[in-house]
Each structure stands twice: as structure tokens, then as C-alpha cells.
């Protein structure tokens, strides 16, 4: 293709945006509305996922040691714990520390009695690198000599993982469904604008235009429609998420609600929306033209 021809295609493609007035507005509107939906939904799903991951990463196990162990044996268990592959972190807490903590929490002094005869055990708090490994690791640890009992909230943790897993699957399915709906809706609207021009495409062919010569301006036009349609959703995502990340986090007192940080998440989301708009715009228009090129 000659440079002048490329310039011509660019010029014609942009001109069509203006000359097809209402059809352009309809297409851009369809892109805008669906991308806003997709954007809001993606933001919600990604944040819920983050939220679920946060909860999961709080899962830990308490390893209660046999109270009769000597100090060097306690030390050696720490070494054994750290040598297990999937273990992420190990924290020691002596029975005295635990009693103090208990008394502080309860705010009562009757507990003083126990200082003479502490019924608690020395404990290691263990986190696995991947929270999902907690059950298998706990089983391994419970077999170690000198370990009295391992507790990670058996049952509750499994339920939590199951709930999270299904929530993630549902989220993924909804995202895919929504994106496909968006593709369908947008490419259909664009198709209608092009069907209205099928006669023109036929005329171009009769004048001796090759298929690619006809297709290029439509490619440009589709790209522009997609990108123009993405402007409002992108602005909404950037602005809305900025507002949320500044206000929501401060106002909600529950500590564990924490949304993904503005940078880079909002920019990534904006990029995704822009890309979806551009790709669908091009795809919708090129696919629609294809039908009319067989004259």
C-alpha cells in the first residue's frame, strides 16, 4: 500500500464518523453503556477477589507443644518446622507470654493464681506460603515428636476456602458472560450501521476497489468508534475509583475492608476497557463489512 493510500484510508475512516451522524452516536452509545457495566463489574469482582485473598492469608495454625519439653527441644522443633517446604513463617510464643496476653485481654487479676502453675503450652504460630496447604502441613506437623496438638480451625477454614472458590468461579463466569454480551451488543450495533451502507460497498466494488481498499476505512472507523466509546467509561473508572479509594476506606471502620490501591489498579482497569472498546470496534466493523464484499 502506498503512503498516500494509507493517508486516504485514515482520512476517509475519520470522515465517516462525522458523516454517519446518528449511526455513529448509536454505536458509541452502545460501546459506552456496555463498557461502563463491564468496568463497574470488573472493579467489584477484582476487589472481592482481593478481599477473599486477604481473609485466606490470615489463616494460620497454632502448634501446641508438649509442656514437658526442655528448652533445647523446643528450639529444635522450631528448626524442624522451618525446614518443612510449604511453611511460610514460624512465630514462637512461650506459655508465660500467652498467660500475660490472656490476663491483659480479660482484665482480671484472679488469673494471677495461674502464674504459679501455668496450664498453657508453649506455642508456635505457623503460616503456610499458600493458605490452601494448611491442612496437609498441619497433619505433617502433628506427627512431629513433642507436638501435642495442632489447631487451625479445622472445618471452618475448609468452608471458607470452598466459599471463596465458588465465589471466584461465579465471578469469572459472570465476567466472561458480560464481556461476550458486550461484544455481541456492540458489534451488532456497528453491523446495523454498516448494513445501511451495503449499497455503497457494492458501488465501490463496481468502480474497481479491492476488498482491502474498502475494508481499511471501516477498520479505522471501527477503531475510532471503540476508542471514542471508551472515553466516558475510562473517565468514570479513573474518577470514580479515585473517589472510592479516598473516601470509602476512611469511612468504613471495619479494618479488613480494603480496596485495591488506586495505582496501578484503576489504570489497569482503564487500559482493559480501552482495549476491549478498540478490539470490539474493529472486530465488529471488519466482520460486518466482510459480508458485503462478495459482489
Amino acid at each position: 500500500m502506498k503512503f498516500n493510500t494509507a493517508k486516504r484510508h485514515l482520512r476517509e475512516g475519520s470522515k465517516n464518523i462525522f458523516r454517519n451522524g446518528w449511526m455513529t452516536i448509536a454505536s458509541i452509545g452502545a460501546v459506552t453503556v456496555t463498557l461502563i457495566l463491564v468496568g463497574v463489574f470488573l472493579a467489584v469482582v477484582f476487589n472481592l477477589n482481593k478481599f477473599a485473598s486477604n481473609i485466606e492469608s490470615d489463616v494460620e495454625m497454632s502448634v501446641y507443644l508438649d509442656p514437658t519439653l526442655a528448652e533445647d527441644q523446643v528450639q529444635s522443633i522450631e528448626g524442624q518446622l522451618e525446614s518443612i517446604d510449604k511453611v511460610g513463617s514460624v512465630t514462637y510464643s512461650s506459655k508465660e507470654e500467652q498467660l500475660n496476653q490472656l490476663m491483659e485481654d480479660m482484665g482480671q487479676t484472679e488469673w494471677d493464681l495461674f502464674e504459679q502453675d501455668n496450664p498453657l503450652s508453649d506455642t508456635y504460630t505457623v503460616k503456610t506460603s499458600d493458605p490452601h496447604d494448611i491442612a496437609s502441613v498441619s497433619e505433617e506437623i502433628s506427627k512431629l515428636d513433642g507436638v501435642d496438638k495442632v489447631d487451625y480451625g479445622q472445618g471452618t477454614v475448609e468452608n471458607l476456602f470452598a466459599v471463596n472458590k465458588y465465589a471466584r468461579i461465579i465471578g469469572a463466569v459472570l465476567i466472561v458472560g458480560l464481556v461476550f454480551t458486550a461484544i455481541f451488543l456492540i458489534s451488532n450495533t456497528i453491523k446495523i450501521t454498516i448494513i445501511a451502507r451495503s449499497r455503497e460497498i457494492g458501488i465501490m466494488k463496481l468502480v474497481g476497489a479491492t476488498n482491502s481498499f474498502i475494508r481499511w476505512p471501516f477498520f479505522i472507523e471501527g477503531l475510532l468508534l471503540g476508542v471514542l466509546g471508551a472515553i466516558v467509561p475510562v473517565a468514570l473508572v479513573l474518577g470514580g475509583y479515585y473517589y472510592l479509594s479516598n473516601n470509602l476506606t476512611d469511612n468504613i471502620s471495619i479494618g479488613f475492608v480494603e480496596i485495591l490501591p488506586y495505582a496501578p489498579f484503576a489504570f489497569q482497569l482503564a487500559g482493559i476497557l480501552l482495549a476491549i472498546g478498540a478490539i470490539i470496534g474493529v472486530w465488529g466493523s471488519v466482520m460486518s463489512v466482510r459480508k458485503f464484499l462478495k459482489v
Partner: protein
Amino acid sequence: MIDMKGVHKTYSNGVTALNGVDVHIDSGEFVYLVGPSGAGKSTFVKMIFRGEKPSTGIVKVDNKDLSTYKERHIPRVRRKIGVVYQDFKLLPKLTIYENVAFALEVIEESPKVIRDRVMEVLDLVGIKDKARSFPDELSGGEQQRVAIARAIANNPKVVIADEPTGNLDPETSWGIMKVLEDVNNKGTTIIMATHSKEIVNTIKKRVIAIENGRIVRDEAGGDYGYEV
């Protein structure tokens, strides 16, 4: 310039439009194609610019068998031939200037050549002052002039006119004929399908009459020969 040998055309719906056509048209000729509606005139002209493929037989343009062109090279055939239609077939969203320029853009001419040539042909058909208008702002006769300008813009060897005056009043028709004669005088072969007895009997040219898909008469300087 144009040769047809044993050309048959049967459409997929079973209608036979051409039933054994043999014809030779020389370079620079002006030929009227006459005959009743449905006789095969339109199919005849479509054969020349590959608007339709013959079912059997050979169509040669400029000594090249059209059936040897691959599907994607058909645009090359069409660029050698200018076509003028009864319904003008202008691109409604392009200005007059852009409509004519389109024929030159498809052959990737340089912008300067396009500019000069478009104004030249618009001048030739007498419609230079409407260059910035859109087709629907023009009268039928004016639109047909634009169509002719587009057809001749890339200096084709053949111009095919399929009832170019069919939608025009008599007075406007004479103006269009004048333009076509001018184009013919510059050496371009013209094939014109028409129903106009007046034109054929007044501006005497070679007349080819088609009936039921066959050539029934072919005479230089002939008459229209049908009662209207």
C-alpha cells in the same frame, strides 16, 4: 477490443439470459444495444465488466480472456472499464469531487494527479461548479454527468452505459448523449444499452439488437427498429 464467443448465461434461478452470443467490437466504436426488456441487454454488458460470469463461452476484453483473472484480480478488469448506470450509483455520502476521485484513489494515483484529473473530467462533463455538492443536491441529469466523469476518470478503454438516459427527461438526455459522443471522439469505445428510439434514430451508430438472449440484428448506422 471486445470479443464474445458462444456466450451462454443461465442464472441460478433457471432463467437463461444469453443463449449463444458471438460479437466483435472494435476499439473506438460506439455501439447501441437495443431490444425488449428482459432480452439480455443488461446481462450482455455485465459480461464485459465481470458483473456476471458466463455459464459457457469466452469473453475477451482487450484481447484478454476474463475467465483467466482470479477472483481477487477482478478489480483490475473493472478499472479498465468505466461503467455508467441508469440509477447513477454515486456514493451518497461523498461529494461530487470525492465520488470522481474515488475511481482514481483505487488505482493509487498520487494526490496531485487526482486533483488535476478530477477537475479536468468534471470540466469535460460541464459540472465543475458542483464539485463540493453532494449527489442528492443535484438533478438527475447532473448526477449522470458525474457518473460519466467517474467512469472516464482513469482513462478506460471502454465505457459501458446501461440505459444512461433511462431516468432522465428527453432534453437532459441529449446533453448526456453529447457528453458520451465527446468521450467517444477521444477514442474511447462506448457500449450503450438503451430503450430510446429517438436517440438511436437520431444519432446514428452501430446497432446490436438482442432478443431472447441472441443477437438478431447487427448493423452499422441502424435504426432502433421497435415500436415504442
